């Protein structure tokens, strides 16, 4: 449905996107992940034909963004970062305007409006001025706008920003339901969102794609070792070296919280039993012993931070959310 080949975007000297390649199949939901300024919005703007790419081609539903922008635009529902609403119009007036711009017939428009107003829970506010609505409602009006003409491709720039937790869950459900019949690209920097909604994740950093895979595969691929977190009540001075001596443990990191250790072990080897035995026999006061699976968050940080040491710190920090990195 969407094909991006060797897209490069330069603003003067600054290269915002550097030979980006990816594609989205029909019915697939793709998450675009990256720190601020990574190029997520720029990519979306190129796909929606708002701005042309410096080099490369982007195709949506078989139409080239540079050659047939109108055909592309017809097939895309786009929610920009800021919901594109007119404050002086009511929700119903706004959606009518949007429908007419997209050339919907009067009958289709009435039906589509009803569908979206119901789907996004806008029934109670449909005759209120958008300027008087809260951020969450405006965001939903923005989404209604993107969905109004039932486009095969949806491009959503941070769709859940400004919504309360209940609404976030509702919108995620909505996007999940759209999968299958619609191709969706959504950008986010909320990582659980990507895991919850998307089949595939593209991580972009500094204008380059640094990883592209399913959320599970990504964490598996980057996990070069098993990690175990160990909390002791009264560690001894030689705990470090005693742990290191255990078969299969490659490395022992101490966390800033006293008594917490991060053990790095060989892949596919469970050393928990042995560690427990050592801890008990040495009377260190074993409090907690658990494997640490690498979350998407860790993957993300590891990929977008170039300094190896920093990434390691991040993993330690994620074990100990309250503690300072060692």
């Amino acid at each position, binding site marked *: 449905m969407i094909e991006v080949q060797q897209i490069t975007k330069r603003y003067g000297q600054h290269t915002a996107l550097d030979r980006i390649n990816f594609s989205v199949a029909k019915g697939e939901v793709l998450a675009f992940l990256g720190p601020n300024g990574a190029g997520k919005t720029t990519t979306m703007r190129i796909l929606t034909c708002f701005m042309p790419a410096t080099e490369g081609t982007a195709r949506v539903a078989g139409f080239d963004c540079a050659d047939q922008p109108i055909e592309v635009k017809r097939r895309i529902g786009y929610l920009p970062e800021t919901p594109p609403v007119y404050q002086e119009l009511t929700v119903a007036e706004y959606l009518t305007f949007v429908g*007419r711009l997209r050339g919907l017939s009067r009958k289709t428009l009435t039906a589509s409006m009803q569908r979206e107003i119901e789907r996004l829970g806008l029934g109670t506010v449909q005759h209120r001025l958008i300027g008087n609505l809260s951020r969450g409602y405006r965001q939903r009006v923005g989404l209604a706008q993107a969905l109004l003409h039932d486009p095969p491709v949806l491009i959503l720039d941070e769709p859940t920003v400004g919504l309360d937790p209940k609404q976030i869950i509702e919108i995620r459900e909505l996007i999940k339901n759209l999968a299958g019949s619609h191709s969706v690209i959504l950008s986010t920097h909320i990582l659980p969102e990507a895991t919850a909604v998307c089949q595939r994740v593209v991580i972009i950093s500094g204008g380059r794609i640094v990883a592209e895979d399913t959320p599970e595969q990504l964490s598996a691929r980057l996990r070069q070792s098993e990690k175990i977190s160990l909390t002791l009540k009264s560690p001894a001075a030689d705990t470090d070296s005693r742990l290191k001596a255990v078969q299969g443990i490659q490395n022992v990191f101490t966390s800033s919280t006293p008594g917490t250790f991060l053990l790095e072990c060989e892949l596919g080897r469970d050393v928990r039993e042995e560690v427990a035995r050592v801890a008990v026999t040495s009377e260190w006061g074993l409090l907690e012993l658990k494997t640490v699976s690498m979350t998407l968050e860790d993957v993300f940080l590891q990929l977008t931070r170039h300094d190896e040491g920093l990434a390691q710190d991040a993993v330690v920090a994620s074990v100990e959310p309250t503690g300072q990195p060692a």
Partner: protein
Amino acid sequence: MTPVRAIIAKELRSYFVSPVVYVVGAVFLLIVGLLAYLYIVFAGAQAIQLMQMQGTAQINLNDLVFRNLFSSIRFILLIILPILTMRLFAEERKLRTFEFLLTSPIGINEIVAGKFLSVFLVFLGLLGLTGLMPLVLALFSDFDWYPVLTGYLGLILLGALFLSVGVLASALTENQIIAAFVSFGLLLVLWLLAGVGSLLEDTAIGQTVSYVSFMEHYEHLVRGLIDTKDLVYFLSGLALMLFFSHRVVDSTRWK
């Protein structure tokens, strides 16, 4: 419903929801009404003077009232029309709806046309209300309708040109105040070119400069002369300004 009509409907709605049109309209009509009243009173005073001197009074309302009035309205339009046009594109850019508009399946020419036509309709409405004045005057006096109508044609063409300059200025910036000021400045320069032209007198440059200014073209219409040259001037100026607006809107995508 074509996209252009959708844009016109939306813009008109925006104009009449905000107080801008009401304030601008009220001020415009007040000033025009006041000026008309003053010119008529002066004409009346002259008539009385003539009566006393000659016994009969033959005054020309076309010269004493309408020509003066049309000259004055020109200046009022120069000041108020930039206020009407300033929001057209600047506001869209400020509120980030510009991106939405440009990612809708419509051409930029349709956007520019819709925006221009909406403000043009507002202007026609305001101008139409001033039409009450000659109608009332016609009840109590005699005057030649022909130059009044050509004068209105001149105002419509002049207004369209002013508005298209305003559309261009609005497309250039996301700040409405700057948009209003730029269009005011451009129009003032167009006005003063007439003075520059007359300084250079009958040289080729002088004639060209005079031609670029709207002054003599408008003057012809106010005097009741419909010359193709003047119509071409207004319509080509309008087309040029809208074309520039198109280019400016298009170029913002490349930045």
